């Protein structure tokens, strides 16, 4: 496997707002990331410990109770000048305590690929693996321009236990109480919906953006 180091640049914007995808308005923190070109793939390595901090007692209690914790990581490659998305990849990570075998299970599913499962005896080790993107494929190298004039950044929006309204509707067997009760109540529910300002997309959302940016060296 051929490995190529990247030349990194600086002087990018300090923070931005994600456009589209799972982002939808999150404020990005700048974070140094490691980029590599492996064959035709551009991979990124970065850790997002803020998404599942071990000091979060509630989250740790949830894991210890045997409930699965899902992390959804959406990595988007954007042009630094225009912030135009170039490529997007999604990774789903599930971390769960298996009380039968008394070990932590971390299941990683990348977009278009099968699931990879790893087992850990220690919770912190399992969490460290779950929150770390180790050489995650984010784009095809052939899809990116080369040279220092074409700089790219990667935004990663991480969601802990994302909320899926459709699964809630299916689980609630009809969509909750707001839609029951006849036409008047349904109309009132729609009227209320007009004034709902922010809908949470996950139990916790954390977004970072690579800084400095990267570019592919010219061959």
């Amino acid at each position, binding site marked *: 496997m051929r490995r190529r180091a990247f030349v990194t640049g600086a002087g990018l914007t300090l923070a931005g707002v994600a456009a589209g995808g799972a982002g939808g308005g999150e404020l990005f923190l700048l974070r140094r990331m490691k980029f590599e070109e492996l064959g035709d793939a551009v991979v990124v390595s970065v850790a997002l410990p803020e998404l599942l901090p071990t000091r979060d007692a509630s989250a740790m209690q949830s894991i210890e109770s045997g409930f699965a914790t899902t992390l959804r990581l959406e990595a988007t490659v954007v042009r630094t000048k225009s912030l135009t998305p170039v490529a997007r990849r999604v990774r789903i990570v599930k971390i769960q305590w298996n009380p039968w075998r008394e070990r932590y299970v971390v299941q990683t599913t990348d977009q278009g690929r099968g699931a990879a499962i790893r087992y850990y005896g220690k919770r912190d080790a399992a969490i460290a693996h779950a929150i770390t993107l180790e050489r995650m494929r984010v784009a095809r190298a052939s899809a990116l321009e080369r040279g220092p004039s074409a700089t790219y950044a990667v935004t990663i929006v991480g969601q802990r236990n994302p*909320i899926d309204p459709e699964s809630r509707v299916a689980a609630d067997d009809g969509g909750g109480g*707001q839609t029951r009760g006849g036409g008047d109540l349904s109309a009132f529910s729609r009227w209320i919906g007009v*004034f709902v300002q922010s809908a949470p997309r996950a139990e916790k959302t954390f977004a970072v953006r690579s800084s400095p940016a990267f570019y592919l060296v010219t061959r």
Partner: protein
Amino acid sequence: MSAEKPERRARRAWTRGPWWGRLESRVIAALVVLGTLCVGASFYLVTLTVEYFDGLVDDAIATSERAAGLAGPFYDGYVQARKQAYQARLTAMARELEIAELRAGAGATARAVEDRRRRQLASLLEREDDLVELSLRAGDDAITVERASAFPEESGAWVWVPATGATAELAPASQALEVAAPPPEDALERHELSAVFALDPAMDRRYQELGRLQREADLVSVGDDVVTRESLEAAVFRAIGVASALVLLIALIAGFVLARATTRKASALSRVMQRVADGELTARVPELGNDELGQLGWAFNRMLDELAAAQKKLSYLQRVGAWQEMARRIAHEIKNPLTPIQLAVQQLREKDPGLDPRFSRMLATSVEIVEDEVAALRRMVTSFSGFAKVPEVRLEPVAIARVFDEFERAYGHLTERESDTLEVVRPSAPIEIAGDRQLLKQCLVNFVENAVLSGREAERESVRVRVSAALGQDREGVLIRVDDNGPGIAPERRERVFEPYESTRRAGTGLGLAIAKKIILDHGGEIWVDDSPLGGAGIVVRLPTRGAPGRTGRV
């Protein structure tokens, strides 16, 4: 009652107050305050209701969380118990292997012993439904049986639970036991028995669902969105606030329209009253509908009409009175020298010596001229005296038909020409009025004389005059008409013909209609000139019937 003197009140100018002091502003302000109070009270009640039920939901969620918290240890206990059960079953199977070994006895080869043990493991595997794999291990040697094919579902659909730690004290497979008696313990070898059990994952799935519910207990579905309860509560307050504001706005607009419709009428009344107070008696309140304000405007207009009519009548009577006084003085001043003049000329005629025929003829002619003029002056003085001494009206119950009868009987042949006709049409039903019979007849004579003389001046071949009477439309008065086929009266002159010394005829004195009008007014009636169906003029007199109030619409 105000102690303010009238003259002081009159001097004080009426000024329009500021906008906040107007009735319209007060009504709207009252509606705003009332609407705001109602909407505000409703909003406050809704807020209390929402917070009350939010508290109930909080309690319910807390209860659910406590229940979910209890479910965790329960699930752990369940897992541990289930694993202990698996361990116990595995130990039991180890004991079964030991017993089977004893029953089988000695004398078998190592190969036969391994085959027998494999069959025993397979038998156990067959017997236990949830057993997937069973393995007997001693050192590096192991016998394993499995039936993964018995679970065609994918492995992820099951929970695989391994059980280890069970031991079976069996003879080494390489050593045949010689006797059926229990072998000495030191002759046995420790075998490790392990198994893998398959567990239906339904409970695990339900437990995971419990975790999801616990995690999302504070979330609420609103349409296609999922929001937190705090966000929903804020949205409910905003929605109700906006709805209340809309309701208040609609109420304000409706109230403004209603208040405007009412206060507009009051303003119109106020403006007209102010104009009347400024002396503009012709001002009238516009049509304001059928409500109380409309009735008030109608009554105010009627009051103004009657006031104007009364003023007009008073003015007319004052003018007539002035003319009567002047006529009386003129008649008095002229009448006194007429007799001496007439006596003087008579003496001149009598004292003529007849010496000169030419002088006698000239004297006779002069005396005749003077006597004619004196006679003319006498007639004029008589007219003036008659006008100045219009008798006072004495009202008494009288039937119109009787007045007509007496008029026709006394004055039915006012004209000597056969071609002239006078038609008297009596009312179809008896009509009784409070009137002066003689003066009413005098009026009728005057009207008919005017009609005949006007017709003759217009050189009509035959003069037609019709006198008729009928009840008015409101049945509160009687209409007496005198129609003719004369030249008529131009509309612009119809008001003036009743003024003293105004006449449509060349030889008229202009006093007849003035006297008639005064008489009619003294009856509480009214008189005017109308077009006649006969082609000429129509004098119309409205007199109140007995018991009905006098009308002062026209004078």
